[in-house]
């Protein structure tokens, strides 16, 4: 883990410097270089995500949280990661409006996932109140 984070930092700095060197002559390729670096770093994080999700699901089993709630949470995190990556790549290359569109879509998708949870919550509160 420690070695990996060092190499990730070095890779990021290296890519940024290389991108800065290329920007004057070839701006598009510099942008693509930075995008590729971001993708590589995100790939390096994949095994840790898997480990964290496994441990979280174990913890939620111990705490007797419903499996569907945990699944909704994990899916919402996944949508957030995808949205953030897409929006950041757009924004970095000057595509503010495209980034806003991606973010709007991601918000709606997360809201759609969270709606059944809200319904459950309201049902629970209603059951308490009717007692």
């Amino acid at each position, binding site marked *: 883990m420690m070695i990996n984070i060092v190499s990730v930092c070095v890779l990021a700095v*290296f890519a940024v410097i290389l991108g800065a060197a290329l920007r004057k*002559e*070839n701006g598009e390729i510099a942008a693509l270089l930075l995008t*590729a670096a971001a993708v590589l770093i995100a790939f390096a994080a994949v095994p840790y995500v898997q480990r964290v999700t496994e441990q979280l699901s174990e913890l939620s089993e111990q705490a007797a949280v419903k499996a569907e709630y945990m699944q909704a949470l994990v899916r919402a*995190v*996944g949508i957030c990661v995808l949205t953030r*990556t897409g929006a950041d*790549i757009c924004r970095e290359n000057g595509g503010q409006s495209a980034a806003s569109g991606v973010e709007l879509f991601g918000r709606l998708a997360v809201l759609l996932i969270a709606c059944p949870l809200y319904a459950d919550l309201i049902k629970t509160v209603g059951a308490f109140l009717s007692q």
Partner: protein
Amino acid sequence: MDIEILFKIAAVGIIVSVLGQVLARAGRDDQAMLTALAGLVIVLTMVIREVSKLFTTVKSLFGL
């Protein structure tokens, strides 16, 4: 992490910019433009493949 893709992209960028300058000095601006376009397409193909791979991985990882 296969860092080679960064080296590949940087190499393509440098080669394209050198070729573009040489061709522009020789008075062949149209060919310089086409070279820049070809380099962009090559790099775009490589990067888009990686981005799509990342998005597919995240999709399967979070069960989307």
